[in-house]
């Protein structure tokens, strides 16, 4: 009988306090405890982190890149959300 595949996890690492966790890569592990240990061995061999999150890959819902036009267009057309949209004389200065 072929072996069942071992689940995939995504690894997020906080490189130092004050920074947020950032995606570092993926790994396979049967459970969360082993995923954490494997993440330590695989992604922090040179002091890359002070904290690790592991998340089952299939728990992540991702946006579809094919729909990115529809998904992100509204931000492109709303120039009035940016400070540069507003005209203020130079001598007023900025805050």
């Amino acid at each position: 009988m072929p072996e069942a595949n071992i689940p995939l996890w995504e690894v997020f690492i906080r490189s130092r306090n004050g920074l947020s966790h950032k995606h570092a890569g993926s790994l396979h592990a049967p459970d969360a405890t082993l995923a954490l240990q494997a993440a330590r061995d695989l992604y922090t061999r040179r002091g890359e982190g002070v904290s690790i999150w592991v998340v089952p890959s299939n728990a992540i819902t991702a946006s579809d890149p094919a729909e990115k036009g529809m998904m992100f267009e509204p931000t492109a057309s709303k120039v009035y959300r940016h400070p540069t949209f507003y005209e203020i004389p130079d001598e007023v200065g900025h805050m």
Partner: protein
Amino acid sequence: MYTQALNAQALDAEPDRADPGVAKVEDAVRLQRFQERIDAEERIEPNDWMPELYRRTLVRQISQHAHSEIIGMQPEGNWITRAPSLRRKAALLAKVQDECGHGLYLYAAAETLGVAREELVDQLLSGKAKYSSIFNYPTLTWADIGAIGWLVDGAAIMNQIPLCRCSYGPYARAMIRVCKEESFHQRQGYEIMLTLARGTDEQKEMAQDALNRWWWPCLMMFGPPDTVSQHSDSSMRWKIKRFSNDELRQKFIDATVPQAHYLGLTVPDPALTFDAASGHWRHGPIDWDEFKQVVAGNGPCNAERMARRRQTEEDGAWVREAARAYAEKNRAKAA
């Protein structure tokens, strides 16, 4: 961070598969748009549309690269228990552990293209997939560990630095991680060579002997000459590859010949000459028959490497089974 499930959905959602005519026109348009993105140095990410050949080329290249890292642990692992000092032992152990990590980053990068790691490992174990020819040579003396770090990891660096700009995002990111670690590998190897080269006559002889045996196989690591190399055209157009085999080989020779001279060693190529006009070292003919033999499975250690890898897989089966059973039991308890 792209699950296989997501990739499967993306494939199912391909429109108009039922009408091959429509699909063809669609594909031509998509292909052109894809090439424009590549030309604009945009990175391609896992769930983006990509030509089937691009996907297949990457799966083959990334998985072969991963297999090479994993098999590559064997020749060096051979010397861990016999390293001449604690300092050397700790360094070698850390290096071999890094190579395992490289293999795992790379399998993960390949998996973003919709294949399972288990499937890739099966291809290696069944002999269907290849790995770098260099790991089919034996490590006979401690000096070989120096030569491997200096030359084999040096050649890997030459290959991998341009791959940090590969058009496929996950591969490029894995390579950035790998390249950061390779520099330690290359330096610890050269330091071993330097120590031997400055040692007793016998030690210097050992260093020379290792260079003699590793030099030509290292030049072969870059693959067949450009005149006969397959796969290259589309790989270059799609910016999977940015330099040809011969270009990378030349860079490697130009970097390592002066390093050999610094060691006071002789490069085992009587035809080697410095071409002052171009500033390049010109090498003599490479024995491509030897390369073909090693790739075909007839190198000095092919059988040994595969037997060891298969044995390891078998020996680990009960561990994987136990870990799965334990995880299952805990899930049942929590439910």
